[in-house]
């Protein structure tokens, strides 16, 4: 009994000494800041920064190869923490962004060209004539974005369009990259006016296939502050650097442009009524 205790203790002692020596001899010099930064990052490894994971971003920030506010998920709070670690000052001013679907053509208002009975995935469905929707620019409604969202912020509605929960959305950009129609954009959460259409078709065609598509009438362009809304190839596009009054939405004859509160402030219902259209 005693021999066993002594033998094992001696073995443990020798091994730990050996380990300690090896650890010292083969130590890998590492930047302690990397670990600290990685601790400050959200740790979701979502890839929203464009890098393989939080560890890689931490290394880049520590090496000065990436900005301290590179993590879209962490936003201003994490940027401030990283600024402390790096001994830099952070001015802030980073506005949180959320994903937003630039299409309002749900199953009730947008026409379909054919009955699709294939793989339930937007990118796969697009192989066949670009999808069953008459509008080649609109949401296909098969929920590929919902499937790739790592934060459960995106949900397909029964009407055939996805809905983003701004509170959960971290602007990681996975849905933006996954959408085969490229109609999901990251928009500043404090902006209220959005154009829910991505169609570059001419107005006459849009009117035939979608009840809420942009027909390129340019009324909103004239109504809004100069430069705030621009026509790009038959489509009105919002410049999110501007603050556009909600009243601009009221001039849209198609109810394409809508005032929507993404950060929970303001009264959405009132604005919709003022715009004169049910959604």
């Amino acid at each position, binding site marked *: 009994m005693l021999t066993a205790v002594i033998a094992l203790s001696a073995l443990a002692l020798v091994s730990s000494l050996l380990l300690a020596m090896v650890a010292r001899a083969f130590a890998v010099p590492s930047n302690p800041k990397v670990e600290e930064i990685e601790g400050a990052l959200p740790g979701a490894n979502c890839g929203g920064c464009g890098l393989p994971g939080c560890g890689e971003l931490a290394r880049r920030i520590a090496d000065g190869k990436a900005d301290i506010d590179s993590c879209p998920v962490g936003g201003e709070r994490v940027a401030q923490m990283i600024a402390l670690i790096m001994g830099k000052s952070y001015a802030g001013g980073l506005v949180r962004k959320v994903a937003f679907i630039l299409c309002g053509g749900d199953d009730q208002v947008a026409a379909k*060209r054919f009955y699709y009975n294939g*793989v339930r995935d937007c990118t*796969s469905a697009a192989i066949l004539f670009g999808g069953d929707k008459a509008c080649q620019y609109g949401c296909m409604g098969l929920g590929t974005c919902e499937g790739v969202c790592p934060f459960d912020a995106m949900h397909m509605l029964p009407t055939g369009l996805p809905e983003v929960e701004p509170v959960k959305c971290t602007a990681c950009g996975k849905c933006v990259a996954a959408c085969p129609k490229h109609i999901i954009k990251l928009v500043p959460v404090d902006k209220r006016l959005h154009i829910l259409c991505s169609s570059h078709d001419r107005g006459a065609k849009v009117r035939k296939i979608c009840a809420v598509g942009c027909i390129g009438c340019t009324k909103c362009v004239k109504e809004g502050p100069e430069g705030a809304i621009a026509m790009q190839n038959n489509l009105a596009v919002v410049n999110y650097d501007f603050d556009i009054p909600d009243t601009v939405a009221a001039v849209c004859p198609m109810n394409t442009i809508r005032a929507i509160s993404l950060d929970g402030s303001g009264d959405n219902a009132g604005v919709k009524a003022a715009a004169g259209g049910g959604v």
Partner: protein
Amino acid sequence: MAGGKFFGGVHPEYNKDLAAARAIEAMPLAARLVVHFAQNLGAAPKPVVKKGDAVKKGQIIAEPQGFISVPIHAPTSGTVQSIDIFPHPVGADMQAAVIIPDGKDEWADGCNVERDASRFDAEAIKQIVRDAGLVGMGGAAFPTHVKLSPPKEKPIDLLIINGAECEPYLTSDHRLMLEKPAQILEGASYFAKVLGVNNVSVAIEKNKPDAIEAMRKAAEKLGIAVRGLDVVYPQGAERQLIFALVGRTVPAGALPMDVGVLVQNVGTSFAAYEAIRFARPLIERVVCVTGRGIVNPRNVLVRIGTTFGDVITYCGGQQPDAGKVIGGGPMMGVAQYSLEASVTKGTSGIVVLKQEEVAQFVGEACIRCGRCVRACPMRLNPSVLGIFAERLRFDDAGEHHVLDCIECGCCAYVCPSRRPMVHQFRRAKAEVRRKAAKAS
């Protein structure tokens, strides 16, 4: 040299008797032609006509871009009414020219002249084949002159003229072999001349004994062998055909020329005859219009650009209970959403099915029964590939050789869970290719 049965394959209902007995008839010129610019695999040719231009029959309306590309010719004389986006039977909306025929059907200068073909050397024949816009007419539409230009280190010792026509329903090649055997063989002789090949074989599935007979009669004096093949789909696919005929296996990722073989479709051979002997570019083809959803199934010679709607109307229209129109055959063809889709160089058939024949199903989970593994003529594992594709694991699908898939549809045909595997593989192949292009 002996071949045999290739691995896998399926036996779908052939339904060829619907149109097999109907002789090819030339369809009168439609009132309006929608001629697509992208009609070949590879680079799409660039339009050289604009709205309002007058064109002559056989005049080039789109110039090839690069080597793997062929010109497009006006199918008749008339005026270009517009250039716009139209549905293409391969399953995409693409740019096409709308030509309103003037009714004169007047050839452009230099076209439609009988000439002595013996004066053309190999290079001249290749040039004619390219200038005439020839592509593989079995459906894939790969430029013929590219196939005729194997590198020097890969000599060809066997030319196979493919008359297998294994796709169910379709009988266009069948009728062509019955009615134009000598012309097909003359076209083949030009291919043989380009390649310097003496060994030419015609391969026909045994369910067309009359075609075998007709081709044998014509081939006798020329020393060309006509071989009957087992009736199994996809017998007409290049690799399967080569194995069945001479027992050579084309390695994964390689081409038939790597084993010294070149395969040309009978329709392409006929088009070569027309181009070389008569300076007629590829502006019309035989289309098999068939299926129980069509009033008068038949084989028609139609101008490229004739809309499916016009062709179907000519064949008596659709039955009241028609449910699906397919461009091509039912195994590899694409369901069409609009009858504005028009006949292209690769359109071998238009199949209209009745509503009751159109199966509607939802793919379910793979039960690992392995039927697809036994059916796959490429010896892939569609079960595993399908699961990878479904889970968006495209790298894994690539490692399991999804790029070798020939999209014949055998796996989906036998799947008891009705999994849409070919659709998934098309997606996976696109993703693997995109990634490879990005890396290079």
